[in-house]
C-alpha cells in the first residue's frame, strides 16, 4: 500500500533562517506531488505542484521554492524565512494524469512551522 511521510512535524525558526521540509511517498511510482499551506483561520493554498523529477510549477509568488530530486521525494525550501511563512504545510500525492485516481489526494500528516 502507499504511504506518505512528511517531516519535521514541528519547527520553530527565527526570521531570516533557512527552511527545508521533506516529503517522501512509498508504494507508487510517477506520482503527482503537491505542497499546500494552511495559514491560521484560512483554507488550503496550493504552493507547488510537480508531475515528475525536476518539474515544478509554482502557483503563487512567494519566498519559498520546491524541488523534486527523485521520483518520490518532494522538498520545500526557503533561504530566508519571513514571519508570514508561518503556517501548517501539507504534502500530498495523487496518481499521474490519465489515471483514475489523478484527482484524489492523499495527504501527509503536516508540518507546523512557526517563524519568530
Amino acid at each position, binding site marked *: 500500500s502507499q504511504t506518505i511521510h*512528511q517531516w519535521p512535524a514541528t519547527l520553530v525558526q527565527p526570521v531570516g533562517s533557512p527552511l527545508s521540509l521533506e516529503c517522501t511517498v512509498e508504494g507508487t511510482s510517477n506520482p*503527482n506531488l*503537491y505542497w499546500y499551506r494552511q495559514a491560521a483561520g*484560512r*483554507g*488550503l493554498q*496550493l504552493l507547488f*505542484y510537480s*508531475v515528475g523529477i525536476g518539474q515544478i*510549477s509554482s*502557483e503563487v509568488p512567494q519566498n519559498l521554492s520546491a524541488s523534486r530530486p527523485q521520483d518520490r521525494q518532494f522538498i520545500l525550501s526557503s533561504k530566508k524565512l519571513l514571519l508570514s511563512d508561518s503556517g*501548517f504545510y*501539507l504534502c*500530498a500525492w495523487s496518481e499521474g*494524469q490519465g489515471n483514475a485516481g*489523478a*484527482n*484524489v*489526494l*492523499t*495527504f*501527509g*500528516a*503536516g508540518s*507546523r512551522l512557526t517563524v519568530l
Partner: protein
Amino acid sequence: AQSVTQLDSHVSVSEGTPVLLRCNYSSSYSPSLFWYVQHPNKGLQLLLKYTSAATLVKGINGFEAEFKKSETSFHLTKPSAHMSDAAEYFCVVSAGGRGRRALTFGSGTRLQVQP
C-alpha cells in the same frame, strides 16, 4: 472555471443528533466532488468522492453526501454525530482540468460536537 462554497464556517451539534455540512459548487464541466476531514494538527483524509456514478455516495465513519445537479450542491450528512467527528471538513471540486488546476478547495467548515 470552477468554484466551491461551504456555506457555514462553523457548525455545532449535540452528540447523537444529525450533522449537515453544506457545499455548493459551480463548474463548466461535469464535476467530481470530494469531502475531506482534518483533525487538529493532522493531514486531510478523504471521506468520500462523487465521480458521476450513484448520486448518493457513502463514505467512511457513517458519512454520506448527495450530488444534486439541479441545486449544484453536495451536502455532507451523518445521522448521528459522535464526539470523534469534531474536526474541519473541506469540500473539493474537480472539473476535468489538468493537474494542479483541477482541484478547488472550499474554505472549510469546523464541526463542533457538544456532549
